[in-house]
């Protein structure tokens, strides 16, 4: 799509894009290029000498059991966050779409967690589940569950999943609600006249018609679980116990900042860039699908 009416000036358009392009080059392209460059280098322990080592950093990564473990952790974590985040918000949005009274109030009361920083969400849930003083821990103990996420790997994973899902529900909820409201009432009325129960109507009409929204949210939630949950993890488990909750982004940070392994961390960054590119392409596929639909 192009504008028919355009202005003419030899210098003005360049001046107008200059600020954005300058920031993009200095803070995006230059560091990204450096990440690629460092990923081919090996630095000695004091950071005095660097040596070009080709793909050795990458080879080392894929031989590193910890790194492969981190891949698995990330896959499990993002699958859990995406599944529960989508399932719970779809349930709530379907219910909110049904009720006539109080719909606005429910909406307002469900969307505010979007405003909570991931790190703060992590702190809130860590407090509720704190091994010795947490109120939820206390209730669980009443049921005979021994809860201590500081030493139990599965419980640590559960904690970061709960905190991440809690924060993301509001976002998914808003998109599902918008999707549900755009489904023509006549379709649902027709099914109701034919005697289909609300449950059946949901699975045979509403759910298939929502599939573009669901697919879109799936990609968004995976991106969220990959990158934005850094704050949740850093504020709670810090990747532990052991490496039970060390997702890829956390490992980049840990290896680069805490362990000062420049080459290895940069190689991980480069791999992450490829993952982001793949996810972005998936997201754009969605937009094409929506146009056809």
């Amino acid at each position, binding site marked *: 799509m192009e*504008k028919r*009416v*355009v*202005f*003419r000036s030899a210098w*003005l*358009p*360049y001046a*107008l*894009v200059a*600020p*954005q*392009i300058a*920031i*993009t080059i*200095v*803070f*995006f392209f230059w*560091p990204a290029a*450096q*990440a690629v460059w*460092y990923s081919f280098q090996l630095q000695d322990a004091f950071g005095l000498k660097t040596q070009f080592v080709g793909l050795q950093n990458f080879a080392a990564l894929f031989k590193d059991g910890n790194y492969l473990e981190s891949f698995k952790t990330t896959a499990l974590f993002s699958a859990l966050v995406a599944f529960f985040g989508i399932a719970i918000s779809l*349930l*709530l949005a379907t*219910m909110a779409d*049904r*009720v006539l009274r109080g719909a606005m109030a*429910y909406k307002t*009361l*469900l*969307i*505010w967690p*979007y*405003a909570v*920083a*991931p*790190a*703060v*969400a992590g*702190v809130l849930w860590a407090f509720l589940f704190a091994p010795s*003083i947490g*109120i939820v821990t*206390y209730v669980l103990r009443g049921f005979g569950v021994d809860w201590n996420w500081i030493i139990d790997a599965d419980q640590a994973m559960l904690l970061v999943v709960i905190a991440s899902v809690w924060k993301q529900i509001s*976002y998914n909820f808003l998109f599902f609600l918008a999707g549900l409201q755009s489904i023509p009432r006549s379709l649902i*009325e027709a099914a*109701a006249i034919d005697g289909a129960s609300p449950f059946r109507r949901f699975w045979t009409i509403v759910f298939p018609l929502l599939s573009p929204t669901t697919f879109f949210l799936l990609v968004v939630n995976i991106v969220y679980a990959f*990158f934005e949950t*850094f*704050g949740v993890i*850093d504020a709670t488990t810090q990747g532990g116990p052991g490496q039970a909750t060390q997702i890829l*982004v956390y490992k980049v*940070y840990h290896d*680069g*900042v805490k362990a000062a392994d420049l080459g290895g*961390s940069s190689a991980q*960054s480069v791999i*992450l*860039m490829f993952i*982001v590119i793949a996810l*972005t392409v998936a997201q754009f596929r969605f937009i094409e699908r929506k146009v056809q639909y």
Partner: protein
Amino acid sequence: MVENRPFVTFLSHAVLILGVLIVAFPLYVTFIASTHTLEAIVQVPMPLLPGDQLIENYRQVLTAGTTTGSRASVASMLINSTVMALAIPLGKIAISVISAFAIVYFRFPARMFFFWMIFVTLMLPVEVRIIPTFKVIADLGMLNTYAGLTVPLIASATATFLFRQFFMTVPDELAEAARVDGAGPMRFFWDVLLPLSKTTMAALFVIQFIYGWNQYLWPLLITTDESMYTTVIGIKRMIVGSDAANEWNLIMATAILAMLPPALVVMLMQRWFVKGLVETEK
């Protein structure tokens, strides 16, 4: 409503109320914890009704932080967070609206090249270029400065696309009329395009305010000086030990202060918020 099924309606309300309660539960406990003394909270189970330390706790964190963890005052953190939450959306809107204007309303040789350059930044989130970006900031001497906290975050492909999308829907006749009347491009931009973009800007502002306020990884990397901490970072710095070793009453008071401004923005400006959320994803 398609048909009247009282039971299903009842069930819907029950599920929604349960959902609202579960979503609000952590907030409630946080608030309660911020109104008690530390001794009261570390008791198991902790009290579930408000205590009488509300003013004490908030005064303590606002003026002097915690005593065991970070001692930076939360008041200065709130100022830092506010600077970030205002500078990022304003900067982002300013540079995006002019670059979108250039890309939509001008034809110039490098136009598509610039367009793609901006587009590619979508694929380079901070998280994948942590170390090198940190080095750039360090080399430029921008560690522990407001410029370092905000400038690198104001370049954004989504904002530029949003304005581009919007400019595409502005009728050509307006630009034509402006040209016939002898208005130059900048006159058209100020007097016609900007007033029309107000709603888009408001929506973007709300979303970016929350984005700026909630930044975590970035300030974590480039602030080492306590006086530059944002509120979210401050909370993290207050947690020093595990469990009972922390002053949870003060941490929770800070958490409430950290959540309040963005939550109010979301709930009070709900219309802009929803519009911004839906449109930035298109």
